[in-house]
């Protein structure tokens, strides 16, 4: 059995834009992989390729065959005509038995502070609440591969930290493969077994860090996180300077 | 002074005649190519629906209109300023059947009989004959449909008994071997109403204003029309190409249909007796058909 998910020399053009050109990388299965990179570099495209929603123009993606995927998209993508609970039920219906489904829905909604809104429609939710519901949906759905595209955006700081902790706990119970895209380097360092910094388009790997520190020992102030943080930030800054010289 | 601006002796620029695409129109095809002796050109309009015809009459857009006699009476009784100029069509309705055991009206007991539009002359006459021959209401099942559809269904054997006008009848006879004419409405009419009465089905109405303004033209027109009509009756084979060209009625169909199409020119004033009998029968049956009462003598255009 393959133990890695692998991009080999992947090319992908979207419309007129060559997003990936000979992009190669690999993510160990059963580990958390965090992707950081400048806006527009192709992170979402990588997730779409991993999910099989897009196909590479050339090159190979291996190791994703037969995996059950959950995906938090960059937008909440809720069903406006279903209530909060209905949106959960929608994805779980075919996957989980009715009795357990109710329980699971209640559990995840409570976890995210959405239980009292279970009968509201998405239009009555704030931006952060929509985001939480999207996350809920992905977490509750049984998965081997969890793709997260900025899942913690629009959430306040304590909530983000709490959710990072929650994700590590969940991973401990069920060590699935996660690919986590974020713009917050610290978040990546707190969560990832491996953190990858991507260059501007066409994406290449600028930096790859493997962190062996157990989750409970990771702390914003504790080495080696701050030094990784500094290095990564300056790498990203250099990238930014190339495409956005005026800022 | 009548209030009309045109002097009473002049000639109109043209004469507009409207007529349905049916046998009574045939003589007009001959006239269409010619002009009246006084040089007045003739414009013929074929109308497709009674509304169209009545609208033209009401708007005064057609000087002469070929209409069913009862429709003419109806318009007159509803206050439209027209009079009956002539009657030209005397019975073009027939009872047709595909079944060999149908010979009389009474044989239709329990049978389905297809008749053109409900409330129209064919409908009322059919009901009249049925009741005169002793059938009670509903003993023959009347079903209504427009004649072309009845004819087509009959040709396909889907309709067994029908009342059809010419030239549909000829079409049916030519296309279905078993089709036979059972009754001729004209003879039945005479049978019940007496040999001296005829069945006046369609004629021409004229706008009274036109009649007042151009009395000379009216007689010119009548003379020409009567001539054309007599010629058509006498020479159907020669009229046929004209009809085929103008109305797309196939020549053989036309020639054969003329055998059963009674065209005869009678001026309005001379037709009153027949029309009165006819209209009073209709009046008994359903007053709406003639506009509620018999028209008075002003309805008939005096010579």
């Amino acid at each position, binding site marked *: 059995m393959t133990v890695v998910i692998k991009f080999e020399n992947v090319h992908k053009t979207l419309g007129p834009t060559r997003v990936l050109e000979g992009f190669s990388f690999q993510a160990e299965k059963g580990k958390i992989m965090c992707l950081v990179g400048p806006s527009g570099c192709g992170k979402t495209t990588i997730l779409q390729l991993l*999910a099989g*929603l897009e196909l590479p123009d050339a090159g190979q993606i291996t190791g994703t065959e037969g995996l*059950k*995927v*959950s*995906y938090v*998209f960059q*937008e909440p*993508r809720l*069903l*406006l*005509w*279903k209530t909060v609970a209905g949106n959960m039920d*929608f*994805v779980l*219906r*075919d*996957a989980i038995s009715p009795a357990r489904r109710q329980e699971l829905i209640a559990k995840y909604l409570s976890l995210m502070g959405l239980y009292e809104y279970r009968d509201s*429609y*998405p*239009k009555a939710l704030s931006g952060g609440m929509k985001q939480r519901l999207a996350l809920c*949906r992905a977490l509750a*759905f049984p998965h081997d591969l969890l793709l997260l595209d900025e899942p913690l955006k629009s959430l306040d700081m304590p909530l983000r930290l709490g959710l990072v902790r929650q994700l590590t706990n969940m991973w401990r119970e069920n060590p699935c493969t996660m690919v986590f895209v974020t713009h917050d380097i610290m978040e990546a360092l707190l969560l990832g077994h491996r953190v990858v910094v991507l260059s501007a388009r066409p994406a290449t790997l600028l930096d790859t860090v493997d962190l062996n520190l157990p989750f409970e020992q990771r702390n914003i102030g504790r080495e080696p996180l701050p030094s990784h943080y500094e290095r990564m930030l300056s790498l990203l800054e250099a990238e930014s300077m190339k495409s956005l010289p005026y800022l | 002074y009548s209030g009309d601006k045109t002097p009473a002796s002049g000639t109109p620029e043209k004469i507009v005649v409207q007529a349905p695409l049916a046998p009574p129109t045939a003589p007009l095809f001959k006239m269409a190519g010619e002009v009246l002796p006084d040089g007045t050109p003739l414009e013929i309009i074929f109308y497709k629906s*009674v*509304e169209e015809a*009545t*609208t033209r009459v*009401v708007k005064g857009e057609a000087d002469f209109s070929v209409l069913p006699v009862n*429709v003419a009476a*109806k*318009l007159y009784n*509803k*206050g*439209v300023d027209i009079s009956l100029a002539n009657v030209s069509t005397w019975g073009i309705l027939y009872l047709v059947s595909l079944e060999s055991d149908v010979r009389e009206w009474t044989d239709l007991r329990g049978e389905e009989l297809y008749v053109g*539009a*409900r*409330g*129209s002359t064919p409908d009322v006459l059919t009901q009249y004959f049925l009741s005169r021959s002793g059938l009670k209401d509903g003993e023959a099942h009347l*079903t*209504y*449909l*427009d004649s072309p*559809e009845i004819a*087509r*269904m009959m040709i*396909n054997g*889907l309709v067994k008994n029908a009342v059809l006008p010419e030239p549909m009848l000829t079409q049916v006879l030519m296309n279905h071997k078993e089709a036979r004419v059972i009754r001729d409405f004209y003879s039945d009419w005479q049978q019940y109403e007496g040999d001296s009465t005829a069945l006046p089905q369609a004629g021409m109405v004229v706008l009274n204003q036109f009649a007042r303004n151009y009395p000379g033209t009216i007689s010119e027109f009548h003379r020409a029309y009567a001539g054309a009509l007599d010629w058509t009756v006498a020479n159907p084979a020669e009229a046929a190409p004209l009809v085929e060209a103008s109305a797309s009625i196939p020549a053989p169909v036309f020639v054969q249909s003329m055998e059963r199409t009674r065209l005869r020119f009678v001026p309005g004033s001379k037709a009153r007796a027949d029309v009165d009998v006819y209209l009073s029968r209709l009046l008994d049956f*359903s007053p*709406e*058909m003639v*506009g509620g009462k018999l028209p008075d003598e002003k309805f008939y255009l005096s010579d």
Partner: protein
Amino acid sequence: MKNSISLTRGLLPLFGLAAFIAFWQLISGFYSHVVVPSPAEVAQTLWTLAAGGELWEQSRHSILRGLLGFCLAVAAGTPLGLLIGLNPVAASLLRPLVVVLQVTPLISWLLLAMIWIGFSRVPVFVVFVTTVPLIVINTYQGVKSIDRQLLQVAQIYRISKPRVIREIYLPQVAPYLLAGVSNALGVTWKAVAMAEFLSVQQGIGAGMAVARINLETAALFAWTLFLIGLGLVTDRLLACVTHHKLKHWM
């Protein structure tokens, strides 16, 4: 405040109606009543028809036929529109068929319909044929305008095709379908009257046919008025029902 505004709004159509009737009265003065009967005359005819029971007797048939044809059209048109929208092969085969239904005049259908479907069912057939393209084309357009992002959600969470259609497509197609249904419901009453006019003994259309032959324009108008009333009532009903259904999320 709010109440008085909604009251005014409720009264507005009445003012409109009054203006219309006044205009009609004026017009009817210019023409023979064979062509334009006066409002009073038409109202009286309508009353006579209603009082004599003929109105109900005839319209009962028409309403049943109309509703049957309409329901069949919605029931068949929605899946057909979905199919055409979802499946390019079905689209290239069935779209021309929809055009045929749209374009073929009643008179060309008439004989075939009578032979194949039988006399009494012709109005149902005509309603069906007239309204089904409305449903199909609107549904199709709704499918084309669907949010592709949600389809990706369904793909990821492995939602079965029938559920995707029911829970992703249909709700988004709903406003399109609604426009189609609204159109179809209006056209239904016209279509049923026309079909009866041409082919059947009873029903509103048959009443109109008799009125026409007899040049009883007042009766023709009275029947038309009744049809319009029918149309207005069903239009309102539809608006209420759908408002109730869609208000939550739109």
